[in-house]
């Protein structure tokens, strides 16, 4: 109930609580009837208000103390809207860890660094590089209050809010004082940083992002020169370069060059961050920034730190409702690596605009970008999203139609542009032209589907954890869409028999199945599944991929039929046949990938099942859980899908528990060992691994063009190679187990003779050939 929003109450620490008329009523302190005990309080005279300016202040300390005695210790007076969030937001004044205004004996309220002290050139360099460290820490997701806003120099420029750029000076509040050349140089650099931050916030907030998870946009009521055109700031930086060249002559040339390259960097960085870019020169913005980085890195050793120029005390003036928090220290080499990464990621992102304008190409690019070794930062992702979502929904409706054409309408009359040029008959009693009807069915579909489609693309632009969570939502939306699509398919089918069966449903269903696969595979990547869950999860993945395999096989047959038929036709049809043949490669690539996924998953599921009976995978006792309940939890994101995709519990159990529960098998140990020693046990697993390898090899041979990943050839090839290596590793693991099985007498023997690596917590991190494939290593002891 104490007001912690004013510094006076907390810093003076006199315990006096000031309440205005409004808030006294809100607190319920005047409502004596609120509790029977309160009603017994003696009536007192209302104290005279102290009139202070326009507001009236009553001293209610005594009343408050008395009233609060009616409460039991620990009793919480709250309404139903008082949430955990609010309780966590509460601060206890006079607790040094919570009360940012608390002063230790002898401590001053404000930092006492003199922003006008003379700086050595090396110190200017030190401050510039320290600012860069904090800027990168901020990019990582920490708030400005713990990073850049701890700088006294930045603080002087931003507060009180300057009315113009000229007013933003280090000597504010000290009229009559002037700055020297080096201070002017530092000021320009700071202005550049502030405007950079403004651009960064503008970009990130214009896209889908999660505050505090991805990034902190809070500026604590400071305006980061949002209204100042960036040309003005660029001009300040240019002047600073001139000042440095002409007015600063008694300093070491190497230091001078170091300062200069930082100014130059800041100028180029600011230009690259600017939202006003020219689409034709997009490949020209980031290379100059990156080009200046080596000079910054190599000259950092000249820098001399000025720790006093940064202080957490500034936080007191930023906000009083947050506890004092430490400065986030990022080492220069780490900050520099982040900066380098940021520039590379942004340069990479610009390539999006130069891709073949095909939805499959775009999506391949988004996957490759999200799968970069170091996850791109929130800014880099927003920067890319800026290109992806540059247009309105109409652009996505176009992409959606292209997507349909590439999957289910090969050179098809349904998507013939002519269909959209036909007028409706004047007399509504006349039948509409079939082509017009087709166009309106497709329009109905794209109108209905575009939002889901956009959301799927949005998910692909998120951080990896969020991507998996958003795909779970998107999946349910596509499930709904699937049932709607089947109605439109019936309408299409009534107009023409020359169609892939249920084309729209096929398209939706395929994308839905892919999303299920992605969710499971991102689960493997993010260590969501425990080692003893792998057999079941890979079995589920195999089943989903098998369904997709069947769907694509049927689709491929249709493409082939159409190609053959067109080949026999007129010249114009023969040309179309060639296009169908070209487009068919995409379906083949999808099919190869689905088959590889199905087979490798099936092999891994079998392998993990065998390893489980040898007690080579950790199996928690789980006294509070049951296999059925865990099954419910695991299948939750997929439980409501139509048609049913999840494997029924009993079927799953039969598959992964062929000898009863892993920890307490119902079959005797000898018969399990016997099973493990039979060649027939391994033949189907080896066969699966081989089929997986063949499928991924086929995908590799089809190449990035067929897979619509021309724009990200290298990453695409790397990931296909990773899948191939995973197959090889799986084959080695199967052979390893088989080789050892002959030496076993009972299942309990295995523990001393074999070890499974690469499966437990953190073991796979960065060591897998492909993040989606957890392949065990069976090691002989």
């Amino acid at each position: 109930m104490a007001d912690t929003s004013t510094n006076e109450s907390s810093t003076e620490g006199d315990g006096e609580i000031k309440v205005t008329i409004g808030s006294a009523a809100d607190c319920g302190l005047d409502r004596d009837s609120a509790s029977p005990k309160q009603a017994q309080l003696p009536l007192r005279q209302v104290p005279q208000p102290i009139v202070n300016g326009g507001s009236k202040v009553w001293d209610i300390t005594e009343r408050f103390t008395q009233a609060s005695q009616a409460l039991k210790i620990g009793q919480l007076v709250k309404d139903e809207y008082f949430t955990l969030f609010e309780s966590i937001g509460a601060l206890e004044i006079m607790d040094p860890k919570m009360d940012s205004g608390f002063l230790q004996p002898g401590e001053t309220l404000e930092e006492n660094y003199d922003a006008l002290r003379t700086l050595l050139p090396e110190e200017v360099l030190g401050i510039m590089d320290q600012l860069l460290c904090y800027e990168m820490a901020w990019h990582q997701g920490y708030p400005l209050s713990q990073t850049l806003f701890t700088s006294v120099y930045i603080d002087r420029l931003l507060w009180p809010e300057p009315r113009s750029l000229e007013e933003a000076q280090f000597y504010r509040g000290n009229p009559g004082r002037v700055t020297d050349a080096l201070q002017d140089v530092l000021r320009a650099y700071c202005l550049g940083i502030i405007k950079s931050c403004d651009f960064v916030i503008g970009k990130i907030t214009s896209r889908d992002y999660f505050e505090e998870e991805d990034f902190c946009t809070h500026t604590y009521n400071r305006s980061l020169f949002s209204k100042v055109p960036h040309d003005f700031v660029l001009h300040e930086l240019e002047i600073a370069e001139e000042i440095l060249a002409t007015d600063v002559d008694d300093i070491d040339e190497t230091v001078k060059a170091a300062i200069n390259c930082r100014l130059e960097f800041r100028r180029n960085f600011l230009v690259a961050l600017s939202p006003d870019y020219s689409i034709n020169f997009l490949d020209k913005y980031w290379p100059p920034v990156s080009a200046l980085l080596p000079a910054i890195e190599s000259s950092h050793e000249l820098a001399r730190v000025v720790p006093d120029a940064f202080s957490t005390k500034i936080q007191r003036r930023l906000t009083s409702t947050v506890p004092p928090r430490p400065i986030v220290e990022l080492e220069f080499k780490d900050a520099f690596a982040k900066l380098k990464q940021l520039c590379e990621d942004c340069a990479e992102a610009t390539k999006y605009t130069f891709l073949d304008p095909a939805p499959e190409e775009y999506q391949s690019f988004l996957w490759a970008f999200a799968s970069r070794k170091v996850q791109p930062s929130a800014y880099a992702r927003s920067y890319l999203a800026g290109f992806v979502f540059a247009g309105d929904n109409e652009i996505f409706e176009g992409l959606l139609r292209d997507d349909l054409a590439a999957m289910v309408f090969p050179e098809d009359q349904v998507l013939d542009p002519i269909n959209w040029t036909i007028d409706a008959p004047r007399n509504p009693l006349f039948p509409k032209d079939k082509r017009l009807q087709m166009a309106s069915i497709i329009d109905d579909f794209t109108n209905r589907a575009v939002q889901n489609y956009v959301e799927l693309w949005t998910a692909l632009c998120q951080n990896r954890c969020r991507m998996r969570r958003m795909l779970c939502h998107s999946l349910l939306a596509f499930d709904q869409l699937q049932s709607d699509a089947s109605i439109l398919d019936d309408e299409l089918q009534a107009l023409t028999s020359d169609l892939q069966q249920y084309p729209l449903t096929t398209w939706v269903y395929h994308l839905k199945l892919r999303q299920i696969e992605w969710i499971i595979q991102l689960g493997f990547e993010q260590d969501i599944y425990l080692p003893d869950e792998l057999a079941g999860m890979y079995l589920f993945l195999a089943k989903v991929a098998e369904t997709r395999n069947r769907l694509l096989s049927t689709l491929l047959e249709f493409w082939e039929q159409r190609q053959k038929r067109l080949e026999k036709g007129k010249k114009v049809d023969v040309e179309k046949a060639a296009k169908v043949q070209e487009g068919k490669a995409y379906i083949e690539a999808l099919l190869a990938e689905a088959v590889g996924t199905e087979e490798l998953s099936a092999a891994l599921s079998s392998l993990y099942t065998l390893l489980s009976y040898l007690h080579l995978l950790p199996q928690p006792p789980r006294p509070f859980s049951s296999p059925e309940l865990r099954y419910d939890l695991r299948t939750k994101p997929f439980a409501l899908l139509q048609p049913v995709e999840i494997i029924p519990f009993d079927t799953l159990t039969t598959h992964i528990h062929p000898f009863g529960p892993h920890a307490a098998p119902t079959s005797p140990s000898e018969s399990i060992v016997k099973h493990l020693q039979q060649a027939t046990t391994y033949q189907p697993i080896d066969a699966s691994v081989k089929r997986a390898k063949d499928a991924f090899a086929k995908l590799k041979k089809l190449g990035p063009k067929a897979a619509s990943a021309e724009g990200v050839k290298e990453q695409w090839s790397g990931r296909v190679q990773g899948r191939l290596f995973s197959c090889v590793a799986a084959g080695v693991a199967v052979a390893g187990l088989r080789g050892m099985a002959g030496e076993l007498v009972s299942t309990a023997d295995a523990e001393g003779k074999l070890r499974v690596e690469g499966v437990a917590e953190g073991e796979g991190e960065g060591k897998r050939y492909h993040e989606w494939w957890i392949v065990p290593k069976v090691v002989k002891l």
Partner: protein
Amino acid sequence: MSNNNAPTDIADLQYVQYQGSKEATYLPAIRQLISKDLSEPYSIYVYRYFLYQWGELCYMALDSTSLIGVVVCKLEHHRSGTFRGYIAMLAVQETHRGKGIATKLVSMAIDAMTARDADEIVLETEVTNTASLKLYERLGFLRSKRLHRYYLNGNTAFRLILYLKPGTATKGAQQLGDSGEMLPQQQHLEPGYGPSVTPV
């Protein structure tokens, strides 16, 4: 109550349900024990938020003089439609770790929530806190999702879930809403125990 560090025979420990009437006895020790491993202390309101409303879901391990361990929970209807338990804080004195005290406390909390008809129990823990993950996973919790930069210190978390009743999944899945609590980061509770809790 004090938090002394003298090792005690765990056989002598008493496991006690929290009582609101003894706040003055217990709360200072609980706060001290939990704050030890936090970068930022919780205000008294956070403790009272839980203890005043769900004191019966708080269990303490006590020796003759001091508080050795504590678990703090809540149980309420979640917007997904389930009756959801939440383990908010768990702490055991450093000198007493590795003896199964945390496991015992959590087990008691699970039993208490089960008796009150909870559908499920959830919690978050840092992805790097192996000891904590092991503790909960041994009891039956599974990881449901990874939460990017969940804690104030920038660390990522796993959400762990334990279903207690059949049908919980479909109860929760009837809505499109996220099964997680999508509140701003300040809300997130830091794990109330150090990185070296080792269950027995």
